[in-house]
């Protein structure tokens, strides 16, 4: 009897605990499935009828160089933002982790950008980056010619800059919280061991912080692969900023091709899925390693 009770606990308790979250999840699963089904049809917003057309939307996309271009730009965008935001966020978090005078204000100040709705932030930045905007004004002060920040050649980098401004604090917060949850004693002993700052960083902080780093990378990867708001609010998707989700937006809301648009989005979904899978298994390993409990 007792042993059965225990087994029941062992087996079902975790599921029970997860159940509420799972119910929410499954509720939202339905539209997902619908989206996949629609992507297999010639669904147009302006057409009352839908026909099942198999993978035609996908094949169509794969044959379209714009699709590949879009995918390329998206990956480039994600790579750029993450490779700037995570190290920068780590740096900021490490600075914020010092208990010095005034640090609380800094902690507060540095997360403020996060609070701007991205669409609004992008509009504000667009204003700042305008030809007669403040950025060019400051550049002008040092004698440089005004830069067309949001014109084709520069626009991707400019949007990356906005993204960095907006989301570096996100990385910083996650990493700061991570830093704060690290055990203090190894640091003390490392100090006594006369390890240099960089050595401690590489050998202690990085490995122990890795789970948090991966989490930051994970969430930033997911979000920047489906970036939309910033581009939409600044360039409306000029050629060099035609991210996947922007393309999908055009297909769906401007050209009414819902089926094709969904095929774009399912593809980006799959890309995110694959990358995340990798990151998550990496996270699992890092988590175990950081606590020294490999199974």
């Amino acid at each position, binding site marked *: 009897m007792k042993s059965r009770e225990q087994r029941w606990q062992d087996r079902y308790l975790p599921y029970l605990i997860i159940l509420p979250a799972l119910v929410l999840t499954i509720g939202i699963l339905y539209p997902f499935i619908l989206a996949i089904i629609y992507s297999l049809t010639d669904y147009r917003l302006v057409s009352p009828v839908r026909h099942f057309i198999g993978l035609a939307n996908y094949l169509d996309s794969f044959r379209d160089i714009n699709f590949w271009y879009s995918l390329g730009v998206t990956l480039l965008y994600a790579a750029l933002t993450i490779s700037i935001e995570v190290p920068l966020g780590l740096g900021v978090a490490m600075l914020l982790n010092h208990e010095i005078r005034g640090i609380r204000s800094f902690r507060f100040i540095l997360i403020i950008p996060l609070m701007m709705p991205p669409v609004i932030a992008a509009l504000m930045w667009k204003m700042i980056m305008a030809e007669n905007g403040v950025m060019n004004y400051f550049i002008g002060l040092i004698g440089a010619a005004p830069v067309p920040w949001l014109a084709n050649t520069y626009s991707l980098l400019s949007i990356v800059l906005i993204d960095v401004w907006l989301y570096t604090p996100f990385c910083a917060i996650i990493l700061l919280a991570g830093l704060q949850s690290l*055990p203090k004693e190894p640091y*003390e002993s490392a*100090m006594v061991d*006369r*390890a240099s700052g960089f050595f401690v960083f590489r050998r202690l902080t990085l490995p122990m912080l890795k789970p948090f780093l991966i989490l930051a990378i994970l969430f930033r990867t997911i979000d920047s692969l489906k970036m939309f708001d910033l581009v939409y609010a600044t360039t409306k998707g000029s050629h060099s900023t035609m991210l996947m989700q922007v393309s999908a937006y055009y297909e769906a809301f401007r050209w009414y091709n819902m089926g094709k648009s969904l095929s774009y989005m399912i593809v980006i979904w799959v890309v995110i899925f694959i990358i995340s899978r990798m990151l998550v298994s990496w996270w699992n390993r890092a988590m175990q*390693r950081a606590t*020294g409990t490999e199974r």
Partner: protein
Amino acid sequence: MSTVVLKDVHKDYGKVKAVRGISFECADREILAILGPSGAGKTSTLKMIAGLESITMGEIFENGRLVNFLPPEKRNTAMVFESYALYPHLSVYDNIAFPLRSRSVQLKGESIDARVLEVADMLQIGPLLGRKPAELSGGQKQRVALGRALAKRAEVLLLDEPISHLDAKLRHHMRRELKKYQQALNTTVIYVTHDYLEALALASTIVVLNMGVIHQTGSPGVVYNRPADTFVATLIGQPRINLVPCRIQNTSAPELECISGDGSFRVPCPLPADQLPSGCREVLVGIRPQFLQLTPNLDDDGIAGEIYVSEYMGTDSIVEVKVGDHLLKVLTKEHGYRIAQAVKLQVLKKDIMLFDAQTGKNLLNHREPDASHGS
């Protein structure tokens, strides 16, 4: 060359005064033990020496240099933490190798390997080198922590109860190895312990700390035989010293006598009248249980008492003898005593200590130093 000098060092944690002005010197290449009960301020002192805790007041010098504000990584110390402070993500091997790879030591592959293996061997943790700290038992963790400190070969080695989790045999082995190591490398060692046996066996100087105050600083022999006060006297020695409140009186005996309140306990006073602090008549007489001889022969001289309880302790027994209102502990090899058996207790005058009843201070402390302590 490595000396450590503390001058009137204080440590407050908010309102808690952990260390209240302590001063001592640790000479080059010596093992200094800080001995004290739980909460005495031992760890705090050690951490201040390592530079891990700020110094509330006072000065710490290493090699004559003021180090109050020197960050820990700039000092050449190694430390074993009470809580081990192992790196959870590193294997035992990497834990030990960690300080060797840091910039200040910067050994290369093979020499790291050699050092790690040497230390692992000494600590008998060779088979564990591949494991992570989470997979170790308590004693194993402690040995790894010790190994990490030793591998570094720092000039000053700070050890915070480094072998408290080991069994007697291993502890004995460790003590020897530590001594060998210290002599081979000319390290200065500050050793925190609550175990007086460890302090006696290892240290050349013992600092007795309590409630953040130093009660006595001295060689093991001095601390054992001439404790500065009742605190030190009771801290050291197991079973603990018998303390009997007495009055010093001029009796018919040839010299002064110490007599307990009910008169049941009386021993000769080890001090002549002229050496007694004026007015001091109320004292505590201290006699270590080993120095009390028990005899069933009631015709012998001595203090009359009866057996109260007897505790078996392996070879020896601790016998408590009731003398008037007092219970005196006696360490004896005879196990044959019955409860309530009448006995006589004898003690040599040289084995009697005298403490001020008010202050607890040892009244004999101007006596010649006793040179009988061992190697």
